């Protein structure tokens, strides 16, 4: 079993969904039930495979290094290879993806958004899954880029076809924004290839090979990646595609977008930008930190101004991803561990919140919070789940959100030695203020939607009922994980920490930092 997994463990779950999609392509559109079953079987198979990977990963007991590495020739002309592998940073995110997608299939089982068409919808979902899993597994920049882009198109169609009233605008905005960023990202990847000592796209070799690049060039190359990843995160001021995309996207689209797609950006920083270009990262870090804390406050203020529940959750993503980016910007093991934890936690929590927003919309046909109220009366269990998720989202200790937020704040008190302490300590205070505002918007949201008594227009509405079986099935794993990770964070930190320590280039290691950067400055 171990041998098999080591050779095929990553390729099979990556491409299984696309095979499933291909099978579905051959089946007529009107056999909806069969389509659903195939999609479910495929995604569950992938999830089971993910579980096997996890078991084997724990058994290998080498969290810091890449596991299940496959290294085969691919595009020899440009020295791009098919390299896959996961370590403690990527595995949690990959497993998150493998978990979320089947839950999305289950959730949409009986209610596909208009214009219905489960075949096309589920095919897109499967293609998305291939792209997302592949991105987390790829260890070659070109391969990474391909998977990164594979994600784009299905999401574009998902928003553009199954979205709300303003879907065209939102879809194109999403597409163009991201594409613009990835174009620059690709330029940066190419620049790395040409500038580094070894002509390679191998992410395992690049940290060493790129060390010789002149600092000024490094800063530019990092800049390209910054835009590529930063737009995906999204960081202030490149975030404006996010509220529109989320508001217009169908529920499942929003969930995937929040749970996984945003993480592709932050993952890019952690996996690619910082390990390969640490000196440039140190140059950029104060700026990234600044944008992160602006995002935290700005996202929170944006939330406070919302009347639309879904748009509020979307803006809260801006704020939460600000915490993740702040953690990354500290360039410390603590900060990056927090960031990875924050990514997973945000995926679970905000994913849940979008599920809930979708279910509220389905029942009330509106997300206008001034018209909602009394959810706890009409659908008590859903109301409590909403309250639970709001608490998790505002970073309540004991739930997952806290372990992304608090260590990020903590780390910014003492950033990597090359960074200015004063700057980051100011960021820390601002970020801490963000936690107050987060409590503000989430609790007001809760008060407006869940507390009180139902409005007259919905008081006797038979559509308003408590959570259904498919909803429970889709939500339970997320809710359990939010609690379990919150109570025992070592489950995740234990996996990420060795990998984070390994990925932090020696240049950022607090012990040797002085020497390395002095040497670089001396050049």
């Amino acid at each position, binding site marked *: 079993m171990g041998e098999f997994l080591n050779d095929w463990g990553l390729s099979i779950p990556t491409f299984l969904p696309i095979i499933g999609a291909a099978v579905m392509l051959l089946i007529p559109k009107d056999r909806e039930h069969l389509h659903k079953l195939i999609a479910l079987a495929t995604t569950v198979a992938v999830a089971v495979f993910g579980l096997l990977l996890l078991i084997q990963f724990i058994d290998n007991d080498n969290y810091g290094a890449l596991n299940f590495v496959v290294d085969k020739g691919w595009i020899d002309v440009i020295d791009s290879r098919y390299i896959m592998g996961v370590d403690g940073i990527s595995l949690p995110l990959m497993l998150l993806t493998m978990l979320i997608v089947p839950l999305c299939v289950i959730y949409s089982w009986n209610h596909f958004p208009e214009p219905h068409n489960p075949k096309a919808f589920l095919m897109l979902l499967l293609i998305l899954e291939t792209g997302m899993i592949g991105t987390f597994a790829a260890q070659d920049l070109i391969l990474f880029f391909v998977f990164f882009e594979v994600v784009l198109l299905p999401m574009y169609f998902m928003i553009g076809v199954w979205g709300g009233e303003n879907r065209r605008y939102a879809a194109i905005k999403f597409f163009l924004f991201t594409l613009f960023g990835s174009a620059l990202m690709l330029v940066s990847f190419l620049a790395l290839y040409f500038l580094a000592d070894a002509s390679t796209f191998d992410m395992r070799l690049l940290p060493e090979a790129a060390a010789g690049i002149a600092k000024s060039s490094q800063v530019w190359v990092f800049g390209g990646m910054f835009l590529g990843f930063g737009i995906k995160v999204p960081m202030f001021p490149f975030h404006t595609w996010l509220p529109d995309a989320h508001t217009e996207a169908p529920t499942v689209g929003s969930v995937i977008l929040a749970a996984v797609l945003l993480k592709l950006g932050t993952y890019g920083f952690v996996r690619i930008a910082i390990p390969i270009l640490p000196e440039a990262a140190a140059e950029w870090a104060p700026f990234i930190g600044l944008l992160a804390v602006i995002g935290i406050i700005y996202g929170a203020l944006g939330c406070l101004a919302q009347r639309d529940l879904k748009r509020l959750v979307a803006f809260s993503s801006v704020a939460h991803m600000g915490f993740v980016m702040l953690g990354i910007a500290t360039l410390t093991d603590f900060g990056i561990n927090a960031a990875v934890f924050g990514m997973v936690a945000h995926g679970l929590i905000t994913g849940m919140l979008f599920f809930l927003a979708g279910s509220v919309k389905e029942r009330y046909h509106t997300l206008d919070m001034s018209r909602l109220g009394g959810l706890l009366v009409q659908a008590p269990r859903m109301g409590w789940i909403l309250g639970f998720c709001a608490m998790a989202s505002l970073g309540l200790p004991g739930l997952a959100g806290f372990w992304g937020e*608090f260590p990020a704040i903590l780390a910014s008190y003492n950033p990597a030695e090359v960074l200015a302490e004063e700057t980051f300590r100011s960021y820390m205070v601002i970020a801490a203020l963000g936690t107050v505002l987060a409590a503000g918007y989430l609790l007001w949201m809760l008060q407006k939607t869940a507390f009180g008594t139902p409005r007259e227009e919905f008081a006797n509405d038979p559509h308003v009922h408590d959570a259904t079986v498919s909803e429970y099935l889709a939500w339970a794993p997320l809710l359990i994980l939010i609690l379990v990770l919150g109570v025992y964070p070592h489950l995740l930190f234990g996996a990420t920490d060795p990998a984070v320590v390994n990925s932090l280039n020696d240049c950022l290691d607090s012990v040797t930092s002085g020497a390395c950067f002095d040497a670089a400055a001396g050049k």
Partner: protein
Amino acid sequence: MLSANIAAAETAGKAVAASGWFLENAWLIWLFPAVSFLLILLFGKRFPRGGSEIGITAVGASFVFGLLTAIQWISKVEGAGGGGAEGEYALGAGGMAAAAEGEASGGVGALTRSITWLTNGAEAIGAGIMIDGLAVMMIFVVTVVSLLVHIYSTDYVAGDRRYTHFFAFLSLFTASMLFFVTASTTIQMLVGWELVGVCSFVLIGHWWEEKDNSDAALKAFFTNRVGDMGIIIGVSILFFGAGTFDVIGVNEAAINGSMSHTVTLAAALCLTAAVISKSGQFFLHTWLPDAMAGPTPVSALIHAATMVVAGIFMVARLYGVFFEGYAIGGSSINTLALIGGLTTLVGATLAFVQNDIKRVLAYSTVSQLGYMVLALGVGAWTAALFHLFTHAFFKACLFLGSGSVSHAVHSFDMKKDMGGLRKVMPHTYRTFMIGTVALAGLPILSGFWSKDEILVGTGGWGLFGGTGGNGAYTVMLAMGMITAALTGAYMTRVVYLTFFGEFRGHGTPHESGPRITVPLWILGGLAVVAGFINFPAGFQLVPASWEEKFLQWVEPVGVSYFPSIAHATPSWTLAIVSVIVALIGIGAAYYYYFIKVRAVSPVATELPDGPTSRSAVARLGHQILVNKYYLDWLYTTVIVGFVKGPLAKAAYWTNQNVIDRVVNEAGTRSVQAGNIVYHKVDQLVVDGIVNATGKISDSSGEELRRIQTGKVQQYAAIMFAAATILAGIFIIVI
């Protein structure tokens, strides 16, 4: 098992420490109610008593375990004291990483045990228990009050629409509070700190159908969040200052100076902000009176006896940081002492103008918490915790008494719906009187002993004899004295309005049932005797071995993680003066209500020509008090209103009309540019390229066309043109 342990304690001192099973497994104490929370939530409704029996069983188990833990602790301390120079007193056989750390200088150190909670930079960050006198004292207080409140609630909230849910959250609160007080790391304390906050939020908003209640719940949560910023930052500072989250390590670093004074002071200030919000100190106390919107048992448990003293506990736990940071030994007025002093006065003055009996008690709690903070600020550590201990019982007794009253008259309004209840509610009346006398600080009830110790601890005014301590905090002594008079006065007012005169409400009130009166009597009994646990040294009226038991059991002495604080010498003069002061307050109020007001009419509540109608100054003062020093207006209307209204709207406006506009403009212009390129350049000039692009677009657009409307090429053109233009913009901008 219990008797076996005690027996062992008496015979072989050292062996007991090794067999301190309950000490080592004290985490069970919070685990019981935590499990109970889940059980009640999942299965509570299926139980005949709606899950309350699960909660009571769990808290009862915690109480028993807590008591056994306390007994083991005491036997350990006594053993160490009796054994003389047992410098290297061993704790357990092994497996306690930090156990030996704390007792370098010969005292009985805390027992700690931990597991890896998270890992960072290959270093494990632990979570565990830290059991010492302070922890066992808190466990006792929390479990006793919680157990009684559970029993009381089975009657008080009987028939409530969310009965099961209520008990579930009582359990969760108890678990969180116990987790907090047994925490061995600052990060755990932070976790417990916020968890009790959220339980408080849920329970204040228990009847969330009414907006007033959910508003009060939100207010409590926000105000606490503001303070939580302080604890988040403070814990971070301490972590990097001391290099650890361990409570013992942090205290040691502060005391032995390995953490610089500036860092210690910064951390102390940040943590003080958290104390101000959580423990209802001036100027963030405003949430506490509003929190009375919650059910009364909740007010007794959370907003009087336990959660609000979390701040006191935190200061006591990290006393090394505060003592060194504020240089408490140096007599200079420090932040803690000042805030505590102001709070006692603010709380006591505001208690005068309330008509809601629970609000009076809430302000009274604010005032008493101020006493505790003041005591910590002047270095009277034991006095603060002793007052915490006694206050928990008499204030819980008063709150539950007010609940019993409201249960009978269906209202909390003293002026409209109460009066003359002493005849119909004898048990409630008697226990309430015990609580009142204890609160007013009259001998020989518990409040007298603890309040007196605080006043002595200020070390002010040498003329009373005694003094010593950590310096002469005369201002604090004066503040404490004034509050003593005010306390007696406002409580006399409450007693008159509630129990004397004639009944002003509707219906026929009657005494509550045994599930309410029995807890009242138990708390009343504790309010009488709790003070006897710490007779002052040299008291002479009791055997010397009865003196200062509390101090001996709770205060860590001779350990490296606790600063060496000086103790003030008790003074008969000061005790007598403080009692006289309290009696003056009581006498003044007695004269006003029991004689003057009653003379007007048995149902009167104020004099028709009271001071406010005669004096403009009194009217102004009354106005200020009624408006609660305008703090609520400042917070709710000015600050929150600004952030939620103009500021948030402005930010969103910027988002839509500035940032997004750039994007949209870029998009629109790109379309135009794309059209120009497409029609003028592309179609006319580079025909060959067009054909090539066309083919590619066509083939890739096959799928797209089926679903979409076949505008692939336009989109593609827009896309690339927009990318180019956006790239241009960003290059210029950056």
